[in-house]
């Protein structure tokens, strides 16, 4: 057993429960970044993130906003000449930064994720108005007003639910989740 592991291995361990280290095979060709529709907003392109991981630059990776900008469109993944699942890597990095409580200040992504997950655990289905409150106050005034306008119109068109939807066998459902995430403990 190795004495310790590199940052690259640490991240690979998050990917396929350690079925090899796909990131090592990156040839830095840039297909992912060239393909990515959001690359322009990222402070490091997806290719650079892989390079930084392979270089062991943990701090720089955690400080990056790259993975929070990933739209999960999988376009990079289908084009990667080395068949690296880059989208999955982005999920892993989001997970990593949430688990480490290390995401950048001011990002809406993590807060929104939390709200979403909490909601599903409570009711089993998604309910937009509750979700909105989790992020809307982080918007600036203009964005806030636009969002409210949009919501009002949706409401008028009958496209917003007024009551949260709940599944019927909610108790079973919550116990089911408890077997995956030990909420409240099991006997």
């Amino acid at each position, binding site marked *: 057993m190795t004495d310790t592991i590199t940052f690259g291995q640490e991240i690979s361990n998050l990917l396929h429960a350690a079925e090899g280290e796909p990131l090592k095979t990156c040839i830095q060709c840039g297909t992912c970044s060239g393909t990515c529709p959001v690359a322009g907003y990222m402070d490091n392109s997806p290719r650079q993130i892989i390079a930084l991981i392979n270089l062991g630059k943990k701090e720089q990776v955690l400080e990056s906003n790259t993975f929070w900008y990933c*739209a999960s469109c999988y376009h990079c993944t289908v084009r990667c000449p080395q068949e690296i699942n880059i989208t999955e890597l982005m999920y892993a990095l989001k*997970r990593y930064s949430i688990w480490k409580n290390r995401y950048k200040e001011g990002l809406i992504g993590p807060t929104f994720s939390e709200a979403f997950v909490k909601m599903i655990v409570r009711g089993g289905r998604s309910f937009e108005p509750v979700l909105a409150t989790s992020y809307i106050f982080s918007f600036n005034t203009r964005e806030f007003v636009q969002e409210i306008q949009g919501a009002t119109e949706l409401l008028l068109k009958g496209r917003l639910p007024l009551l949260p939807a709940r599944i019927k*066998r909610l108790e079973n459902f919550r116990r089911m989740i408890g077997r995956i995430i030990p909420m409240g403990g099991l006997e």
Partner: protein
Amino acid sequence: MKEFAYFPGCSLEKMASSYHMSAMETTQKLGVKLNELDDWNCCGATTYFYIDELLAYTLCARNLAIAEKTGLDVVAPCSACYKNMFFTAAHLKKDEDLAEHVNFALEEDNLHFSGNVKVKHLIEVFAQDIGPDELKSKVTKPLEGIRIAPYYGCQIIRPQKEKEDVEQPQFFEELISAIGATPINYPLKMRCCGGSLIISSRTAALTMVRNLLQSAVDNQAAVIATACPMCQVNLEVYQQQVNLEFGTNFSVPVMYFTQLIGMALGIPNKKLGIGKEFVAMAPTPLAVETAWGLPRKTK
């Protein structure tokens, strides 16, 4: 009569209720029965994978297990639900360890997933199980002269499942041709709409919507057809915000493909949920060009 288990997904309950209505109406007319899953739960969207993938798999597996009880293949109209369910089924089939763990959780709801259910997207039912030829034979009011931009978006086709074409598929075009309309070829039909970013990275997402609308308009699309509630909301509801943000003047109707098919099958607009849009489609198909003017180039 073909029969499928049907997983509508959260958005189709309200936000995209017109998709739900039109899906039900059109499939019925084409001899396909969709049975809504009993007590389904949210698929976890993409968000769950950020927190705990095992939990995301479990959520999908519950729906899959419920579907498996019916003995029917399961159909999802939302691309994200479809992708999640498809790959959950694939992962559970491949990874015994994972399947065992997830099934242990499913016991709490007296369910078990053994891996026998096939997952399809709603548009695959039209493209494969019904087929464009069959569809064409049922059309009573062909949408002649309407230029429709097929918008594939991301997760219907990606990631790659087998060896299918993930860059230039044609099945959406074939369906549009089958209802008598003209499918337009525009370069961004496969680009992401930024749906999952609209909340967390608003500017990025609005830019992506702008580019898409521009590409469709540049190629004289009268309407964009989508097969995903996320795409529809993003492209349509946020259109006004794009206009405010970028000073553009877009006014492109964005319809579910089932609504367009429904129109061609002669189903009344009301039954198709038409009327809930922010940008209304022209009252009659033939009037579209005059109603919206072509092309609507922005500065």
